[in-house]
């Protein structure tokens, strides 16, 4: 990415004030209300450094989840949680199951690494499930839990098809990635994307990111990575079942399931109508039967 000309206005290593529209310098995008913003996470560029996890915890003041490794890989949290809003998954790929491989395909040959995050779905099941309106769609087209409204009913937790949202037992509220709502408000790039040293996590306008991502897939195919594909882009895996598309989408090189992602997630609210219709029909027919029984038998 070429250096933005405005960057030359700020040569000092310590700044006395905030740079207006700083995201323009760090992510080449101006953050403006009314547009859709999201993440494109290109897993072929991820080196598994977990800078995103750390930056997220630093900025959002999230506690550590214990100093441990899961023991299965270099993963130390196992998944997203109320206090982990970025999670780097590590999938070991050495060998072909049967023996030691003698040749390696390009990009992430031995380990697949992927920084998972809330998908900020276009039709978000958590938001649609929230009975208090605590979960809302921001002016940046992202999905955020308003902590001063959430009453901890916990319905968003099973509603999410990706297992992202979680209740905190410390404060009794639901928590998840806010796509750094507070940073976007003041023109800053989200912490994880800004910290990512390889630009595996890219922040920007969703349409522009999708365009960039499709070009990247074509480039990778040209380089011999035939398995590269987009997860969560319109009409692809992840963007199924009425979710339309995911504002945080991914470039993957293995089946979605290998990354703990569902191939075809669905919009939970699709099932409200059918359940109510079938249940009420059964209730109506039994009520009718009851009326007839009471008429005949009394």
């Amino acid at each position, binding site marked *: 990415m070429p250096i933005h000309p405005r960057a030359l206005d700020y040569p000092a290593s310590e700044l006395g004030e905030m740079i207006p529209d700083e995201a323009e310098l760090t992510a080449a995008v101006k953050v403006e209300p009314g547009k859709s913003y999201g993440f494109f996470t290109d897993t072929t560029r991820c080196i598994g450094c977990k800078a995103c996890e750390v930056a997220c915890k630093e900025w959002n003041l999230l506690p550590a989840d214990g100093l441990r490794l899961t023991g299965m890989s270099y993963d130390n949290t196992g998944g997203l949680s109320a206090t982990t809003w970025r999670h780097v998954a590590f999938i070991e790929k050495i060998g072909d199951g049967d023996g030691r491989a003698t040749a390696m395909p390009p990009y992430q040959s031995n380990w697949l690494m992927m920084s998972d995050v809330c998908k900020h779905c276009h039709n978000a099941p958590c938001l649609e*499930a929230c009975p208090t309106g605590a979960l809302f769609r921001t002016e940046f087209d992202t999905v955020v839990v308003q902590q001063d409204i959430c009453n901890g009913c916990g319905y968003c937790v099973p509603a999410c098809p990706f297992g992202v949202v979680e209740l905190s037992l410390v404060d009794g509220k639901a928590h998840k990635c806010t796509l750094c709502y507070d940073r976007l408000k003041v023109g800053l790039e989200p912490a994880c994307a800004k910290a990512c040293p390889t630009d595996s996590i890219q922040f920007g306008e969703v349409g522009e990111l999708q365009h960039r991502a499709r070009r990247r897939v074509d480039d990778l195919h040209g380089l011999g990575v035939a398995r590269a594909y987009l997860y969560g882009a319109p009409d692809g895996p992840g963007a199924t079942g009425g979710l339309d598309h995911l504002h945080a989408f991914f470039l993957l090189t293995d089946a979605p399931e290998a990354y703990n992602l569902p191939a075809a997630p669905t919009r939970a609210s699709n099932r409200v109508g059918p359940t109510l219709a*079938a249940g009420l029909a059964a209730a109506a027919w039994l009520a009718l039967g009851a009326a007839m029984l009471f008429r005949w038998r009394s």
Partner: protein
Amino acid sequence: MNPRSTAVRAPYGRDAKYAPAASAGAPVTTYYGQPQLKRSHWGVRVALYIFIAGLSGAAQMIAAAADLAGGESCRGTVRRGRHIALLAVAVGPPLLIADLHTPQRFYNMLRIFRRTSPMSIGTYVLSSFSLFSIVTAFAQLMAERNGGGWNRLARTAQLPAALAGAGMTTYTAALLAATSTPLWAAAPRALGVQFAGSAIAAAAGALQLAGRIDGDDGGAAALEGLALAAAATELVGALAAERQCRRAGIGDALALHRPWGALHQLGAVGLGAAVPVAVHAGKLAGRRPRPRLMLTAALAVLAGSFALRLSVLGAGNDSAERPQQSLGFASGRNRR
């Protein structure tokens, strides 16, 4: 565990842009067996609420049907139905508020109405059911003392109460189905039928028992027939749910989750549906069952109705944490 050991080699990328992961029942690739979904925190408290909501809602429906269609001999049934309806009014809101993790903010439920959220729908169903049921029961009480116009008020308020009561029997099924938890999401329609049938069977059973305690068997024959029809409806729903689960690739899902599978088979299906169906079928076949047997059937229906809610909640929560099931359910073949 190496995730590749159970991998289904699906061609992703350029050659085959996207292929669904697995055929029904085949093992699914997982991420070291880590849970892919988070389980809901709902437990016994919510199961109890769903049971009581269904019981009370259906009792109000039956009371309305008896009031409109039945004769003078059904007056007792109508009165008892209106009283049983007050159970959910008294116990429901405390159970639900106690289940919140920030209960002091329970009133935020009334901030908005969201038709995509069964919990929001349920908030207003329970509120209106409570309001109309209280009016009905109060008018009933006044009518017993003063008669006259109070009776008309009771009948008028009972209609919307019974409509909301129908909602009380079913919205809880939508609450579970409208999640990503595989066991609840796999068979939405069947779950609705099961919950409605079970609620009405439980209410019919409760009204039989209450009538017995009052020493009034007016309408008892109709209630027995209704309990049979409702238990049969529930049984049809249970069979349909099992079939749909199997088709969605999470077959024998309930049986997998011990002890919930056993609770479901013995409690929900056995006590809740099979026992009453057998007792009533014996009666239809001409054998006169002793009243005690009929009451046993009524008690079995009540126990089975609670067992259904408890087992579906428990097994569903467990299914959310099994990546084989959640990833299998959300694979290409279930796209809709």
